[in-house]
């Protein structure tokens, strides 16, 4: 006879037994990890995350055409650190929400699909521990995938181009050590919105059950928020959205770093993560697992669950309005002029070094910028591709003042692309001739970033 029958006790078994204890959380966590990692789909995703970025960065970095429309893309051929930041930009747009969908958005729905809820409940005997184990396991897997993206892209870039200095978004040249630290911090910053999207994924997975809507919730949210970020929304509302940190990390690459928007975005993300997780937990523990007709939460539950998230956005806007001096779009003429002049000064010195000319301190250059948006009839504020700026500086050893023209395309997130309009010898051509050959002209086109959190000046 088997062990089962051998183990059957006799009459002593008729005594009332104590209630069975729930399985410890760490065992449930391990069980969830085993289930997640046994899925071939996730294994493929993990492989792609750990190998794909490195290969892509290595190939693109050595190509003649670089993704100049992506921030740091124009520097991919110059330094290996830029490749990781390009991957980060791309990941923030779609990859990270998609990863949270595939993992967190499916972790509860998979049990519905496989019909294993009742089995799991009987085995674990604690909905609370099941929820925590699933949440922790899915976050662990998401974290591992994000780390894979970061490590792979850095390794690919360094292997293909090397760890040379990186030019920041204010034209400042970052040493390899500084660049490495900033790249790591940038990836760390986006963990916060990834956490928020993961929590939203858990919420969708709990609410919609086996419906594809559960799986798609983070991606749908990312799509809606990406659309919102394209609109001319007030900067306070923009920062109050959980996708803001997907853009805010760029502030790490200016001097001084734009810490305010980053901190605000991270705090908003953490609150979103907490609230979405609490809502998901509340929906989960109220579910009746014996109800044969259950097919996801009803419309009333869905609406009452989403309402607190909408309230959170409103509260975030109110708090940000109270603690920050910014208003409107966060982009105005003085900010752009300051940012452009600073970037130009740094990049002018870079160009000077490339041309093997004597270095000039920025104090001597005394760079200034004068910008106008769309002519006299348009207010000089807000995003748009109709900014035209004239940069002036003092040429060392000469009484004349140099000037260069730029067309600026400023986007609502504070990023701008400065496109040089001449003179050709300064910023009108994409290459400059150096003693060692032609190299990309750092003053021809460059990316910049406006700190949206500083006070906006009217007029």
């Amino acid at each position, binding site marked *: 006879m*088997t062990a089962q*029958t051998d183990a059957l006790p006799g*009459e002593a*078994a008729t005594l009332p037994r104590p*209630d069975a204890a729930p399985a410890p959380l760490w065992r449930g966590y391990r069980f969830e990890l085993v289930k997640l990692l*046994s899925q071939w789909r996730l294994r493929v995703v993990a492989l792609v995350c750990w190998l794909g970025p490195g290969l892509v960065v290595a190939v693109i970095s050595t190509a003649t055409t670089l993704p100049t429309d992506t921030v740091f893309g124009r520097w991919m051929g110059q330094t290996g650190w830029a490749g990781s930041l390009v991957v980060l930009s791309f990941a923030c747009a779609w990859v990270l929400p998609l990863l949270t969908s595939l993992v967190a958005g499916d972790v509860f729905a998979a049990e519905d699909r496989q019909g294993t809820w009742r089995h799991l409940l*009987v085995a674990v005997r604690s909905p609370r521990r099941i929820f925590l184990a699933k949440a922790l396991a899915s976050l662990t897997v998401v974290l591992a995938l994000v780390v894979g993206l970061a490590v792979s892209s850095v390794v690919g870039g360094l292997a293909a181009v090397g760890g040379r200095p990186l030019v920041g978004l204010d034209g400042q040249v970052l040493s390899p050590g500084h660049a490495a630290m900033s790249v790591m911090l940038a990836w760390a910053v986006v963990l916060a919105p990834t956490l928020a999207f993961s929590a939203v994924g858990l919420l969708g997975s709990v609410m919609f059950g086996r419906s594809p809507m559960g799986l798609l919730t983070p991606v749908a949210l990312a799509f809606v928020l990406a659309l919102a970020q394209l609109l001319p929304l007030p900067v306070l509302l923009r920062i109050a959205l959980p996708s803001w940190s997907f853009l805010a990390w760029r502030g790490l690459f200016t001097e001084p770093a734009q810490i305010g928007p980053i901190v605000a975005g991270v705090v908003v993300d953490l609150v979103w993560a907490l609230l979405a997780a609490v809502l998901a937990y509340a929906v989960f523990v109220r579910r009746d697992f*014996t109800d044969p007709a259950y097919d996801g939460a009803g419309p009333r539950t869905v609406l009452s669950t989403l309402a607190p998230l909408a309230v959170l956005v409103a509260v975030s806007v109110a708090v940000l309005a109270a603690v920050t001096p910014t208003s409107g779009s966060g982009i105005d003429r003085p900010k752009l002029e300051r940012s452009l002049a600073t970037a130009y000064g740094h990049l002018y010195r870079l160009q000077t070094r490339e041309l093997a000319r004597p270095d000039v301190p920025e104090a001597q250059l005394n760079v200034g910028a004068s910008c106008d948006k769309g002519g006299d009839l348009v207010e000089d504020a807000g995003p748009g591709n109709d900014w035209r700026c004239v940069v002036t500086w003092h040429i060392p050893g000469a009484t004349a003042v140099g000037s260069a023209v730029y067309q600026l395309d400023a986007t609502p997130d504070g990023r701008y692309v400065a496109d040089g309009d001449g003179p050709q010898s300064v910023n009108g051509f994409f290459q400059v001739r150096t003693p060692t050959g032609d190299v990309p002209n750092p003053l021809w086109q460059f990316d910049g970033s406006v700190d949206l959190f500083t006070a906006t000046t009217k007029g």
Partner: protein
Amino acid sequence: MQIGPAVRARGIVKSFGAVIALDGVDIDIAEGHVHGLVGPNGAGKTTLLGLLLGLAVADSGTLEVLGRPVRRALALPDGVAGFVDGPGLYPSLTARQNLVALASLRGDRKPGIDDALDTVGLTDVADDRVRGFSLGMRQRLGLAAALLSRPRLLVLDEPANGLDAAGTRHVHRVLGRLAAGGASVVMSSHRMDDLTALCTEVSLLASGRVVFSGPVSKLAAETGAIDYRLRTSDGAAARRLAESTPTVRVLPDDDLLQRQDAQALLVRGSVASLDDLVARLVGLGVAVRELCPVVSPLEAAYLALTGTEEDRGGDGPPSSPGQGSDDRTDDGINR
């Protein structure tokens, strides 16, 4: 020592919105017995099994499992195992991995996984992914998973679904051994042959109410007239005698029956009537070579609940569905 019931339920009511799944269910399941739940779809079998597994609590009524009252979900004594709505298995894991994961969840250091797999006849496919398993194999693996916890109360929802003959034999053997070892088994099934072979007691549910609860033999005695196939050494004499017996009715020949055996005839009557008929046949020197119910008493009772008059093949069960437990009599039958 006094042996108490493994399950004692009184006045259990459970609703899902406007749908009343269980409506005043009383049930006792003794230790060491295999208890069958029979009823049409929607009768409340799975809901009742779910309550026994602790997946939910009743809206009202009292439930005791292994001597302890169940007052909140999942607060059950150790030793309750089983599944409802199919065994919960993870298709991306192998059979062994499923059991290992489950055992590690419980922290069981001596899970006896190989024994469990062997018991249900799945040793050969232990390292195959469950994704490729047939329904019957999944059922057997689900049973193996339940056995890992060495249950004192095993709750199984349709465990015979998809089982082939060998699988059925494995499952019967396992459940029989468990009951012999003192454990109780509660199982629902639509396969009356399984229930008849395995169960010492059955409960018939209809519309959330128990319309019969007791031993199968008692159900046979209470079931009234059912159809029998009678084969004798002299078919014509048997037909004449049956037709002259007032409490026995000779039914029109069934094509299938005639193809199988031209000497056989179908008769309908109660157990007592058939006893009388057999005595008279023997008295006339007609050898009775076979006398067996066309459908089992359990199936006849079930069909009476769910089928048409033609399906029933008899005068029906002792009561009709829809009667409340208030009408319950001492013999466990609603009248």
